[in-house]
């Protein structure tokens, strides 16, 4: 290293020093400490007691843990693709460059500004079995169906019915896709016009252009939005917490892994166990992210590569 390089290194480190402190105290130390505590029994008031892998073996036998994992995967598996499709669809519509598109963009974006607690309270009301908006809209449809086919269907009692509670939450989260819409729209606007002109010359219709030009070009944006919503949906907490008023939902259908970590840490004061679950959740997210990266590598198009 030359003298000048050393000098620049010093100045550089000085500028990033707030981040270095934050990284050590708020990321690295908690992460290692979490791993350490996961091998301990720690009830906060007494000192941590080393118990080997007991937390992990407890977890394997803990029905609530498995329930929370199942609920989280169920939610993520539906909500991620659903939100991506809705967002991409809306972005493609907005990309047609028609008069008034800014108003529509604003309307689609607004719900993503709603604070999570408000979102929970509001959707608890919208999904109310008797008085909510969702069933007020659905009831005439089911009534007509019943009259026509002599069937006997009624709109579900969303957040009270274990079969439908997660679906209610999925709708609530789909309402907030505005962020992804804006990101997709920015990606769509970067697609070179010449590519569409070339496709027009080849006689491609709209669907062919979307499938063979648009989607490949914006594949990095799809990947980005996918990973973001993967990370977010595996830590879903606030909205189900508010919707269930800090409970687990009917038949524990809204008990998610992040919720279960919270209950163990701050209600049962089983800090070691909470850390162990947290670590498993981290490994799941990491594995899925790597898997998604591996799978998409072959399908992503990067300009200049």
């Amino acid at each position, binding site marked *: 290293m030359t003298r000048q390089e050393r000098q620049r*290194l010093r100045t*550089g480190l000085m*500028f*990033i*020093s*707030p*981040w270095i402190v*934050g*990284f050590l*105290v*708020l990321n690295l*130390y*908690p992460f290692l400490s*979490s791993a350490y*505590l996961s091998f301990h029994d720690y009830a906060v008031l007494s000192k941590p007691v080393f118990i080997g892998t007991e937390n992990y073996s407890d977890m394997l036998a803990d029905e609530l843990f498995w329930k929370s994992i199942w609920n989280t995967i169920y939610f993520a598996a539906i909500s991620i693709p659903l939100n991506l499709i809705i967002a991409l669809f809306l972005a493609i519509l907005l990309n*047609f460059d028609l008069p008034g598109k800014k108003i*529509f963009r604003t*309307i*689609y*974006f607004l*719900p993503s*500004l*709603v*604070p*999570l*607690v408000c979102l929970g*309270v*509001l*959707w*608890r*009301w*919208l999904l*109310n079995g008797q008085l909510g*908006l969702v069933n*007020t809209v659905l*009831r005439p449809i089911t009534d007509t169906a019943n009259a026509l086919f002599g069937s006997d269907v009624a709109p579900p009692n969303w957040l009270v019915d274990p079969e439908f509670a997660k679906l209610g939450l999925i709708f609530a989260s789909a*309402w907030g896709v505005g962020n992804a819409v*804006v*990101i*997709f729209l920015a990606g769509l606007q970067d697609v070179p016009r010449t590519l569409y002109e070339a496709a027009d010359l080849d006689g491609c219709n*709209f669907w062919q252009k979307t499938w063979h030009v648009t989607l490949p070009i914006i594949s990095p*944006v799809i990947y980005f*939005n996918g990973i973001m919503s993967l990370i977010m949906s*595996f*830590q879903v*907490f606030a909205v189900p*917490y*508010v919707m269930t*008023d*800090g409970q687990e939902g009917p038949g524990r259908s809204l008990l998610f892994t*992040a919720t279960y*970590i*919270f209950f163990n840490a*701050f209600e049962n004061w089983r800090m070691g166990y*909470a*850390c162990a679950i*947290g670590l498993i*959740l981290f490994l799941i*997210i*990491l594995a899925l992210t790597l898997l998604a990266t591996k799978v998409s590598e072959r399908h992503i198009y990067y300009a200049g590569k």
Partner: protein
Amino acid sequence: MTAKTAQRVQTVCIYLMLIAGAIVFISPFAWMVSTSLKPLKETMAMPPQWLPSDLQWENYPQAIDEMGEFWRYTWNTLYLCLMTVIGTVISSTLAAYGFSRIEWPGRDKTFMLVLATMMIPFPIIMVPIFLVFRDLGWIGSFKPLWVPTFFAGAFNIFLLRQFMLTLPKELSESARIDGASELQICFRIILPLAKPAIIVVALFQFMATWNDFLGPLIYLTNQQDFTLSLGLQSYQSQSGGTSWHYLMAASTLVILPVIALFFFAQRYFIEGIATTGGKG
């Protein structure tokens, strides 16, 4: 069918879909406001009424009353927003400058580490962080909610760095030749030019603090220290989910400032979000 009519049919179809989508996205807001202006009896009417027969504006002051310490919560939330915005702007401007405007050995590898920390979800590290703040005696105070923002979060560094990288190198070089120190270059030259990106970071931080629920839930122990989010949840919890007209009025009041902020700074929001996805 001529090409022109086909074009027209297409336009009409797109508008129909855009309008249908807009109705779906707007109606929850409409239902919220409509409920907030109904008398209690009409919120329970079967079949549900779309609009209140008589606008009950007094639901709003009533909801503020029912929430207990509404103004206190508002003040707490604004205080936290102010502190976290200051912390974020100062610390991430400095860090982003260090990651973009000075070339030091190992810089880009270190930046990968910054990006990697974005992958660590909060539920996984919240227990040890809680314990750190407990050992400092900070539980039940506002400090755990704002002090961390003075240590540059990864996302904000990322946004500002992307922007600072686009500013020409020559700006810094000529200033260096003139004998300016890096701090002077950072604050006198780069900071004014990076203002749009800094506004984006400040807005996002404001929103994040306004919306935060898990943090206040863990750290705040006294009712009078609650933020609006935590206060709203606590009010819903007490009211047992019956006085929906007040709950919707309270929700409207908590959402409104955020929507207002968005309309004032729409451009920054949209450009900021677009940057996070595309140009990364």
